[in-house]
């Protein structure tokens, strides 16, 4: 087997990209097989009118039954579900949303960039549920400090313990009058608000912020269209010796070796690869002596547009820029003192001012509908809830031997149900959002507490979690497998809990930290 590389990195998204960025700058020779092709930003896209598309923007029916984010414009970017099938219990659909291209899902992420806090890292200490992470906020803070400038995160430091401050491009932009009214109403109800925290730039992706620097060192080789099939283990040492992969286009099979293997293929793809890598030593999946590989799957539930409002003063063409526009974020405020509510943990909101409410909200049609839409043009104000989902053993992914992808690799059967805790939280969130909007003098035209199906938030986490106890976890505090010391899993699968904050910033920070740990150990010949 060819072993010209120090580190093999499976996947090129947030975790794989950051691992390559970190390791190559510390001198490690890295090879990065990725399942997808590179995206050609010059020749791969063009401006096109919607009426020129074959399906006028509706998209080819049935192409993406589980990817609500896909449009006919960007259909080429999302993983085709026929080529990449999976299964779930008939009564509990799971929406597995993937992008198989160099850069992974950072090509299309929402860019919300929040730090986790010890409300998450030490959640068990706080309210008794689940497990603590084997790291604390103090361990990760220096890495957040270094990741935020790379991604040019804009935001405002507030001193909130639940979303720690950071190294931001300070956002001191003035709020519109409608946002000011909303903030004042929230304050009266004891609900905190802040500016959104987002990575900025034309593209805020691994493909433009991490991989180019890694390639520039001369120490990173990227191999597109290389679909990892199985991780290979030396039967004598129990260590990872390499990976077998199949070329996406030719279907030729290859193997390649390295001293250290980093898996960063995204939460469920990484766990799938480990579960598919069985051997006499690891009959239930690589690094799975604990039996929890695949277990404790969770995400963040979304209630999209939980409250939809009209700002009355903006009606009739009076939606000025002074009155409408902008938005912000409400961080978790529930259960910061344990036991405050009937549910555990909490939720956050994104809120936004402006835009015209959808025609679906008005029980009208014809001229009456269009007159109404003209009257409420740009008067909209809406909120979306993002809530913490509790990690539970019963929510899991396993190999479904009857479902294989187009390259013959067994896929996953995914079981994930929301429980009463999430339902209670969603209900509380919608009631709170409506109360804030009502207090601001907005007209609430629609509200609901219906969560999107599990997976749709594209924040799936867990299944290969970190922990101090090898009997209850797969990875140690440096994302290193308890069972296999030259195996590291760096993506969202390592999460122990997720809070209500978008996870990408934490994935990046964990990956940078693990990359430095690896480089140090390799230098000392301990890996």
């Amino acid at each position, binding site marked *: 087997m060819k072993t010209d590389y120090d580190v093999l990195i499976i996947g090129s998204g947030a975790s794989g990209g950051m691992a390559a960025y970190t390791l190559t700058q510390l001198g490690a020779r890295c090879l990065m097989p990725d399942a997808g092709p590179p995206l050609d930003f010059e020749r791969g896209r063009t401006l096109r009118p919607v009426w020129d598309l074959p399906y006028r923007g509706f998209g080819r029916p049935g192409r993406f039954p589980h990817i609500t984010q896909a449009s006919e414009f960007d259909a080429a970017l999302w993983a085709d579900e026929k080529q990449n099938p999976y299964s779930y219990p008939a009564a509990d659909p799971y929406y597995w949303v993937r992008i198989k291209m160099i850069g992974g899902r950072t090509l299309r992420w929402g860019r919300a960039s929040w730090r986790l806090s010890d409300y998450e890292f030490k959640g068990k200490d706080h309210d008794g549920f689940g497990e603590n992470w084997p790291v604390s906020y103090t361990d990760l803070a220096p890495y957040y400090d270094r990741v935020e400038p790379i991604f040019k995160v804009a935001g405002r430091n507030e001193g909130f313990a639940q979303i720690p401050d950071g190294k931001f491009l300070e956002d001191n932009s003035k709020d519109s009058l409608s946002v000011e009214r909303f903030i004042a109403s929230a304050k009266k109800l004891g609900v905190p608000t802040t500016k959104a925290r987002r990575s900025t730039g034309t593209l805020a992706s691994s493909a433009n912020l991490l991989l180019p620097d890694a390639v520039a060192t001369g120490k990173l080789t990227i191999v597109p269209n290389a679909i990892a099939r199985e991780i290979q283990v030396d039967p004598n040492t129990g260590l990872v010796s390499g990976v077998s992969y199949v070329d996406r286009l030719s279907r030729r099979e290859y193997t390649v070796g390295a001293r250290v293997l980093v898996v960063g293929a995204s939460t469920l793809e990484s766990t799938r690869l480990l579960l598919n890598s069985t051997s006499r030593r690891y009959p239930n999946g690589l690094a799975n002596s604990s039996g929890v590989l695949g277990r404790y799957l969770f995400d963040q539930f979304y209630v999209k547009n939980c409250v939809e409002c009209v700002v009355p003063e903006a009606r009739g063409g009076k939606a000025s820029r002074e009155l409408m526009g902008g938005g912000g974020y409400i961080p978790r405020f529930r259960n910061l003192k344990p036991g405050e509510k009937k549910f555990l943990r909490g939720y956050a909101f994104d809120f936004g001012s402006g835009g015209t409410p959808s025609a679906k909200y008005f029980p*009208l049609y*014809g001229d009456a509908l269009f007159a109404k839409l003209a009257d409420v043009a740009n008067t909209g104000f809406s909120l979306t809830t993002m809530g913490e989902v509790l990690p539970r053993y019963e929510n899991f992914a396993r190999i479904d031997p009857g479902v294989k992808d187009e390259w013959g690799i067994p896929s996953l059967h995914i079981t994930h149900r929301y429980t009463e805790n999430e339902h209670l939280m969603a209900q509380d969130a919608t009631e709170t959002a409506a109360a804030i909007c009502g207090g601001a003098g907005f007209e609430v035209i*629609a509200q*609901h507490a219906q969560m999107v199906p599990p997976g749709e938030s594209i924040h799936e986490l867990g299944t290969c979690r970190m922990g101090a106890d090898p009997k209850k976890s797969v990875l140690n505090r440096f994302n290193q497998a308890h069972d296999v010391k030259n195996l590291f899993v760096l993506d969202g699968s390592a999460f122990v809990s997720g809070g209500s904050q978008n996870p990408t910033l934490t994935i990046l920070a964990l990956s940078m930290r693990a990359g430095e740990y690896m480089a140090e150990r390799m230098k000392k010949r301990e890996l």
Partner: protein
Amino acid sequence: MKRRQAIQALLGAPALAAIPLPAIAQEMPKLATSTADAVGEPSTHYFSNPQMTALRRLGDLVVPAGAGRPGARDARAAEFLDFLISQSPADRQSLYRNGLDQLQSEARSRFNAAFESLTPQQADGVLGPLHTAWTYAAPADPFARFLREAKEDLIAATMSSHEWSDAQAAAGRRGTGIGTYWYPVE
């Protein structure tokens, strides 16, 4: 003569290379083109005649033409939906076919007339579910669910048409439907 030279002579390569080409012959032309939808009349084939006439009439009622605003008929939204639904999953096909049949049967039973012949006031009686307040969950009644979907689809098919785009542009408005399109990947 060596073999390579002989082949080149046979192919005429040296002679061609020697001919000076005008500049325009060396440029790759980018030809202006139109679209099938813009120049041709779409054939319908999925819905039956009564279903199609009901859908066209529903389009007139839901998205009538207005000042500077094309309607569903101008945008041939019903014809587009005939195409779209023909390729849609079976449950959506049934919803549409049964819903359009019910428009006709309701019109017959209430007014002894075809749906397309009803006055707007009469049709409004049939379209009662469209006056129901929005809920996140789709209505349990299939006819109400059909009307809700058809309303959204007719609006979307009209607003994504060439005619709508032209009207928006003529009025100096944004929202002409231009987007970044990604070519299929090998």
